[in-house]
């Protein structure tokens, strides 16, 4: 059978953001897949270097629309580490509350998107309707639905009142009942099982080799979660389970995310019922002492790594963001191989990709190549055109 190459993307209705997947097909079966990223490069890291620490925080928050709190918190933890600030416990608790509400909203959003990709639009509509409860809870606490802007270097910007605790608790409890229903629905409905079981298989050893992160790794049986491995904020003191699955397929990823939502509800109830008293922020100097800091944060999609370097000035000297999707993309080509073309959309969607979080400029210099200076490039150009019979050496540039 002849092999044909079908491009999926850069612009494709199945993809929520641009990204290019070249699928080599033999009939309906995918035999090879190539991935190309870089359609969403925004230069966030460079832009952060021209802003002060407070301005850069709002910029970093906008790296991702779904896990905005994850990025902002990881960045702010770096700033606090450099400043040597002792963040109040109440601020940490509020960060955990927003972080877990964000996880709930991200996973419900993913459940809807995944249901839509497999053609189960009823589940998509219902899960997104109930996601509104989380969005309302976030709006009550922070003021806005998507960019909460709760963080500030040294703590959080807004306190949670006793009344808000009650509202949010009621919402979390209502949501927990709905999530239990969705778990029943998604794990027992034959259409969901037929479209997800045995699709996009990523064995455990392959997941470890390809450095998978977050729910993708946990669905392949790799018990890896920053909240457990390297507890930040208050996670060390909270009681919650690490959800893993040995299914290694899309169904496993669905299972992990669904049960993680229940764990998030459990964490939320613990923290909301036990909010430490005290201040919500401490002062941080405008200029940070020179140094470097690295912090990890378990974003809804996986491990989020942030690096910050300060040279003692007003602005950060270097900001580096490693979004979890970048770690997960390396597994996509493996998962696509051997599956049907019709399953490509759900396999890509199953890692919960966030293309624009991921795109960073990378300079690749393979063996035999190097970086040229302006003068070298000029003489190289003159030589190149001399061979073609054009002499540019008399043209003055420098």
């Amino acid at each position, binding site marked *: 059978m002849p092999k044909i190459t079908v491009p999926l993307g850069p612009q494709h209705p199945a993809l929520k953001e641009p990204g290019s997947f070249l699928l080599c097909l033999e009939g309906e079966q995918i035999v090879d897949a190539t991935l190309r990223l870089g359609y969403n490069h925004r230069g966030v890291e460079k832009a952060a270097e021209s*802003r*002060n620490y*407070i*301005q850069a*925080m*709002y*910029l970093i928050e*906008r790296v991702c629309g779904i896990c905005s709190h994850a990025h902002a918190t990881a960045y702010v933890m770096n700033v606090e580490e450099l400043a040597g600030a002792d963040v109040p416990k109440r601020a940490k608790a509020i960060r955990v509350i927003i972080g877990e509400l964000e996880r709930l909203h991200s996973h419900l959003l993913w459940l809807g998107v995944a249901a839509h990709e497999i053609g189960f639009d*009823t*589940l998509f509509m*219902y899960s997104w*309707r109930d996601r*509104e409860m989380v969005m*309302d809870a976030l*709006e*009550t*606490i*922070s*003021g*806005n639905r998507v*960019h909460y*802007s709760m963080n*500030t270097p040294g703590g959080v*910007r*807004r306190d949670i009142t006793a009344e808000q605790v009650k509202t949010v608790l009621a919402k979390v409890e209502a949501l927990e009942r709905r999530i239990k*229903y969705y778990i*029943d*629905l998604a794990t*027992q*409905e*034959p259409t969901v*099982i037929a479209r997800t079981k045995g699709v996009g298989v990523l064995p455990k050893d392959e997941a470890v080799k390809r450095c998978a992160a977050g729910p993708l790794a946990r669905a392949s049986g790799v018990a890896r979660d920053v909240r457990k491995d390297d507890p930040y904020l208050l996670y060390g003191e909270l009681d919650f389970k690490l959800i893993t699955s040995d299914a290694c397929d899309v169904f496993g990823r669905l299972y992990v995310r669904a049960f993680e939502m229940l764990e998030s509800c459990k964490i939320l109830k613990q923290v909301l019922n036990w909010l430490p008293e005290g201040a919500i922020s401490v002062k941080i100097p405008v200029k940070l002492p020179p140094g470097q800091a690295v912090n990890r944060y378990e974003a809804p999609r996986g491990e989020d790594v942030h690096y910050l370097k300060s040279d003692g000035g007003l602005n950060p000297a270097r900001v580096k963001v490693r979004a979890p999707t970048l770690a997960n993309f390396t597994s996509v080509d493996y998962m696509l191989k051997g599956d049907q073309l019709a399953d490509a959309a759900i396999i890509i969607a199953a890692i919960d990709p966030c293309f624009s979080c991921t795109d960073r400029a990378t300079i690749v210099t393979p063996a035999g190549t190097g970086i040229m200076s302006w003068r070298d490039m000029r003489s190289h150009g003159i030589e190149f055109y001399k061979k073609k019979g054009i002499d540019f050496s008399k043209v003055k540039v420098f």
Partner: protein
Amino acid sequence: MARPLKALGEVLNNLFKKPATSQYPVKKHTPAERYRARIKFTPEECIGCNICMRNCPANAITIKQINLEAKPQTLPDGKVVPAKRKFKCVIDLSRCIYCAQCVDGCPKKALKSTDEFELAAFDKKALQDEFKHPDETAK
């Protein structure tokens, strides 16, 4: 264990419920108490410290002094009274990201966040939110 038609009960239930979506343009939306939208500026309160301008992530705020000729006055008893500086402000709504960092940073509470969120305009000039000092308007 697979159980067909699992969602049927929920679907039938929802057939007889009101729509979950809000009827927005017909029914006005009331945002949360802490909602951040259009920023209001009170020129009389401003002392020109520029903290808001320095910390604005989108460079959306411009605050200018309108009475540059104002000089410190010396009272008959030798005391020097600093010049009463007056300011006007322009907030570029097309640049503003509504984080309300300026509201948090203002030491005199001259900036306030309101819940006006219907800010779309046909004219780009309408997005330049100008707050004149009352003395300037009187002239």
